[in-house]
């Protein structure tokens, strides 16, 4: 069903601008005197319920849980890198901001027992990153995650926290593995996949595989 829009014909009184002026002042005054207290802002702005604005920078914005901040790498409770260099995040990243260099054949082995690989180099170009969260979503190891706040992982003594994720040149904004791990901090491994795998492998006496082949060659 359609509703027709009403056409307005003004009376002579209304054409004198006086009612329009009065209406304008009415709206502005009602806002000025804060008759319209916003319930939506009550949570956000606990200090002053009547204000729609924040007294930035004294007052900082609190972000809701589930905020998608900058992507960082995390380490587990043993301070071991969780990333196994599967390159799924590199593949899925829509703006191609992630670059992973795999360790190669003679590369460094993973920190965690049982895990095969660990990235040799892991770079995220924070200028290209669009904070879509796909990397976190596809990671099969929960090794990369999006910061839950815009200042997470920053040294408070270094700078004001709302100046997080800033740099003075492009090179500075390409975060390497060490920087990403430092910012990411420790996330406890809740599933402990590799510990289980190692235990399973040991139980079946198939581990370590490469040692067996070496013995055969000898």
């Amino acid at each position: 069903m359609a509703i027709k829009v009403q056409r307005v014909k003004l009376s002579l009184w209304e054409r004198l601008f006086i009612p329009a002026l009065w209406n304008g002042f009415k709206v502005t005054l009602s806002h000025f005197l804060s008759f319209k207290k916003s319930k939506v802002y009550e949570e956000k702005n606990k200090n002053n319920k009547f204000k729609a604005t924040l007294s930035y920078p004294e007052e900082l914005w609190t972000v809701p849980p589930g905020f998608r901040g900058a992507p960082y790498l995390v380490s587990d409770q043993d301070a071991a890198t969780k990333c196994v260099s599967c390159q799924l995040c590199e593949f899925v990243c829509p703006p191609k901001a992630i670059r992973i260099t795999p360790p190669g054949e003679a590369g460094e082995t993973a920190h965690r027992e049982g895990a095969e690989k660990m990235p040799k180099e892991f770079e995220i170009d924070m200028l290209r990153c669009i904070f879509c969260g796909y990397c976190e979503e596809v990671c099969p190891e929960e090794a990369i995650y999006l910061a839950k706040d815009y200042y997470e992982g920053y040294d408070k003594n270094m700078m004001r926290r709302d100046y997080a994720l800033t740099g003075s040149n492009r090179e500075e904004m390409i975060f390497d593995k060490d920087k990403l791990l430092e910012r990411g901090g420790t996330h406890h491994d809740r599933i402990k996949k590799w510990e289980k795998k190692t235990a399973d492998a040991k139980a079946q006496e198939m581990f370590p595989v490469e040692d067996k082949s070496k013995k055969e060659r000898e």
Partner: protein
Amino acid sequence: MSKVSTTQDIEIRDTAANMAAADELTDVQGEKMVLNMGPSHPATHGVLRLRLEMDGEIITKAEPDVGYLHRGDEKIAENMTYNQFLPYTDRLDYLAPLANNVHYVLAVEKLLGITDDLPERCQYIRTICCELARVSAHLLGLGAFAMDTGAFTVFLHTFTEREKIYCLIEALTGARFTTSYTRVGGLSRDLPEGWLDELSKFLDEVKINFDETETLLTRNPIFLERTQDVGIITREEAIDFGLSGPNLRGSGVEHDVRKAQPYMIYDRFDFDVPVGTTGDCYDRYAVRILEMRESVKILRQCIADIPGGPINVDDGKIVLPPTEKVMTNMEELIHQFMLVTQGQDAPVGEIYFGAENPKGELGFYIHSLGGGTPHRLKIRAPSFVNLSILSQLLPGHMIADVVAILGSLDFVMGECDR
């Protein structure tokens, strides 16, 4: 060599010189002035350039020049999987990213043939997203329109309301602007706890804002002078130029994709389609105000009816499995890798899906040769089509009316140039 060769200088002018010469010619021939409006002009809402030929203050010829924000989104889409393209749809109509997300995945789901498998809760959340985006986009459209016609206060008040919407969107999706909320076959996350209560609080408050906007504008003699009987698009013209959305309905054509070809669950809701009578700027304004009120009505019905249950399609070949399962089961891990690297395996074929975006009918035409990437993805951007009428509409109007007309057409260049 006895042959005498002669050389002749041929004057080859560069583009700038050519244009200067052309301007000189028009200056000589008539008393017309060519005015460049845009690409960076506050009233052109982005990077629209208008080449206006004017006789005094009256426009005799108008040429819209688009493409300053062209990023090649359609070509980019050909090189990535369907889910990967989703963040790019945020940046089409950047005033209603949630609606773009929803309509894009609906198009892909139509191609995959899983439209009927979507869970109820997912459809309700998507409807909430679309309508919230519509309210947000219209609030900005009206605020900017009012500001263009000289009423600055309205702009500030509508922006305050939009801020509340962005708070809600931030809590829902994790980002205020670039939402990237939906996924093919579902959503990236469920509603946060207590979000619907926040939404209904907002709906109470936004109604006050609609009333305020109406108080300030609807019977304001200055606003009426600037909008009534300005920029009239007749019913026939609107249909001929393929307008859609509030601009089409402002001209009195009762066509809303939500009613004409109901998609998702729009056939369940009770809402009306506001239509104008004259097709001038004022009608387009009034249609938008009424449309927001109808959106609030739909949102209320959504809040009342929303069921529980899953939010994703139960199919490991379309939706990423939960992380716990990926880390423990081999099958889910394989699905995860296959889905991310190859995408959803779409059948060979082509589909078009058009849906009612805040600016008009946003359509996605996908031509698939099978596999996880589209062979061609065409975006029917409503703003682009709506702008095509400018060269017909503007001549005969005064230069000051251009601002009002552009404001009332309410376009977004991100979508127009895509």
